[in-house]
């Protein structure tokens, strides 16, 4: 870049920094207040210790920030690996419109939820230890999960970068990063498989502390399978909200593809929920847990597994048959509640279930938890209002080289391009 360009870019960037859209809206006001309060709480937390803001429990050492933001939140970021799998690996082009929004959501989820992990670490300044390699705890599941978070964030960033490049008109960089897409998608799917299940594996050694209805050696597999339904349900809700909020930022073709995509997603959700239900049933029988069923814990378990797994599974199916968007959204919300229940049951509610005292998070914990989500949504909105996430890509991307796609037409096109180049250089 020469100097002029640099100045141009700088102007463009500062201009883009200004808010677009109305500033004073209920959402903005509420989120701003939450975030400000959270900042104050965090200042207290870092100067006085964790106990000054969170419920200090020796029995349940992980509070809301880890169990809700990290462990539950990351399950909902699972949409990215499922959607990129369908589009880039299986070549199901009909899902392409939602790739960018899904990847962006996941990227931000990982950034802010891994951030939440830092808030909860007692000694966050030591976080570098397992990364630079002076103390690799290779036998630790958390070590694995932490590394996968970092690597996967990188993959997601590369997957999303072409969008940034289109916004900032970085043609060369865009081409380079686009060419990496397939590789990082494959890498990212492998990483996701492992850390989605790894989040469950964190609890494998807590065997004596988790109620037998929720503990099994198959927690990792259950976590992985449920992350598919969790991720896609979140995509459904996100898309539905996006349709309203980002109307002006959406291309026509995007809008028209909306209902078709939701209906296909409903079918996949239904199938994956069914597989999840079936697995949970096998695990239940395998664990010989029948005796626990007729206890309060058993009823609670049934609420989760029937009310928030089987029920949404059926609703998804019939919604798919009837092509009913409203039902799909209801089922997605039910699934989301179900996943939150499941993760919190394992990590908090049915953890130390025999303890006689119930422990609740403090209001300050809750505020920070919500603030983390708010920040994520605000950044999401900031990016969507500017970059071609829902919008049409700028036309220059077709100038030289097409986006990676399966069409042989494109292939011959690029081949021709190259030939022309050769000709030119030969001359």
């Amino acid at each position, binding site marked *: 870049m020469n100097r002029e360009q640099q100045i141009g870019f700088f102007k463009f960037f500062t201009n883009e920094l200004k808010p677009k859209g109305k500033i004073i809206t209920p959402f903005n006001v509420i989120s701003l207040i939450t975030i400000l309060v959270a900042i104050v709480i965090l200042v207290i937390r*870092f*100067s*006085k*210790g*964790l*106990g*000054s803001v969170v419920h*200090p429990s*020796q*029995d349940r*050492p992980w509070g809301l920030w880890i169990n809700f933001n990290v462990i539950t939140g990351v399950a909902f970021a699972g949409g990215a690996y499922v959607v990129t*799998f369908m589009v*880039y*690996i*299986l*070549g199901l082009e009909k899902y392409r419109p939602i790739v960018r929004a899904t990847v962006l959501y996941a990227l931000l989820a990982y950034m802010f939820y891994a951030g939440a992990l830092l808030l909860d*670490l*007692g*000694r*966050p300044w*030591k*976080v570098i*230890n*397992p990364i630079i390699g002076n*103390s*690799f*705890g*290779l*036998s*630790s*599941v*958390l070590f*694995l999960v*932490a590394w996968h978070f970092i690597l996967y964030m990188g993959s997601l960033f590369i997957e999303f970068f072409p969008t940034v490049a289109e916004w900032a008109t970085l043609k060369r960089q865009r081409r380079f990063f686009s060419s990496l897409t397939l590789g990082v998608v*494959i890498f990212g*799917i*492998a990483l996701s*498989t*492992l850390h989605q*299940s*790894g989040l469950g*594996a*964190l*609890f*494998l*050694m*807590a*065997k*004596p*502390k988790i109620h037998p209805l929720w503990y099994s*050696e*198959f927690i990792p*597999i259950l976590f*992985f399978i449920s992350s598919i339904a969790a991720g896609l349900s979140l995509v459904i809700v996100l898309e539905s909200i996006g349709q309203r909020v980002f109307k002006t930022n959406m291309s026509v073709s995007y809008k028209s593809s909306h209902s078709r995509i939701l209906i296909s997603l409903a079918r996949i959700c239904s199938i994956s929920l069914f597989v999840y239900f079936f*697995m949970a049933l*096998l*695990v239940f029988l*395998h664990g010989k847990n029948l005796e626990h069923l007729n206890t309060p814990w058993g009823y609670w378990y049934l609420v989760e597994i029937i009310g928030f797994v089987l029920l949404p599974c059926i609703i998804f199916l019939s919604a798919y048959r009837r092509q009913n968007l409203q039902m799909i959204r209801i089922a997605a919300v039910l699934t989301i509640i179900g996943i939150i229940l499941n993760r919190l049951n394992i990590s908090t509610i049915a953890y130390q279930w025999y303890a006689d005292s119930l422990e609740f998070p403090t209001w300050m914990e809750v505020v920070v938890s919500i603030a983390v989500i708010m920040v994520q949504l605000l950044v999401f909105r900031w990016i969507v209002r500017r970059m071609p996430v829902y919008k049409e890509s700028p036309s220059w991307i077709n100038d030289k080289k097409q986006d990676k796609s*399966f069409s*042989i037409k494109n292939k011959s096109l690029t081949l021709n391009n190259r030939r022309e180049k050769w000709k030119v250089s030969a001359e």
Partner: protein
Amino acid sequence: MGVDRRNFLKTLGVVGSTLTMAKSFGASASDVKSDVEFDGILFDSTLCIGCQNCEIVCADHYGLPQQEDFPEPGKKREPNATSRIAMNCYETSKGEMYMRDACNHCNEPACASACLTKAMLKTDEGPVIWREEKCMGCRSCMISCPFDVPKFDYDSPNPIIQKCRMCFELLQEGQKPVCVENCPAEALLFGKRRDLIEIANARIYADPENYNHAIYGEHEVGGTGIIYLASVPFEELGLRNDLGTVPYPEYNKTFLYSVPAVLILWPAFLLGLYNAAKERLTKKQIEEES
């Protein structure tokens, strides 16, 4: 049938087949066995008089505040962020008995295998120690320890994990742990774990009327460095009998071993899928065009 179902589940989870190849990668710190015999402590609850001397000298030695309360039946005292050992009193079928609550220095500790920085370390000599300079305060050691031993200091901006370290530094100088050294009733005995088990067995053998014929910690969670004798079943003294004899890091192994397998096989499989899909689509396109 049970086995079948289990296998079925495992296969579904892409785990299974490549376990052997993966062994080398997943090998954990706890797999490294040295020739040195583990040190240990034998706690004979039939001798303990509940004087709390061990608590007092431990707090003294490590500069921790003294505990104000004392063991009473019906009250559960626990080590906390500022104490490493707690004595409890239980009303048992043979009268009031005392039991010790502190780190058990497992042979294959869950805490160390959960720790991502190796701050929790099983030393070759046996004690499991916490190292301040490594720890990042994630508390997964607390999640994993079957005895809920490690305690986190919530009240400090520079928090530590509080846990018994069997006076590792003293052992290095050839001394004994302070609690053992100062027990007036000689309820505590320090030595090589293997010898202690023999001594414990000999005590049971010599006085079969008095002792419950078992050593807690000989097999529990794969064996612990602190082993216990009692005259009543151990449950009556607040020790859990449902922890099993499998070393806790084992519960992670299937998962950890499958990691390299997934990282190698999964991308290969995905690439195959990609090529298949591409071929199919290309064919379709050619057909459409012609």
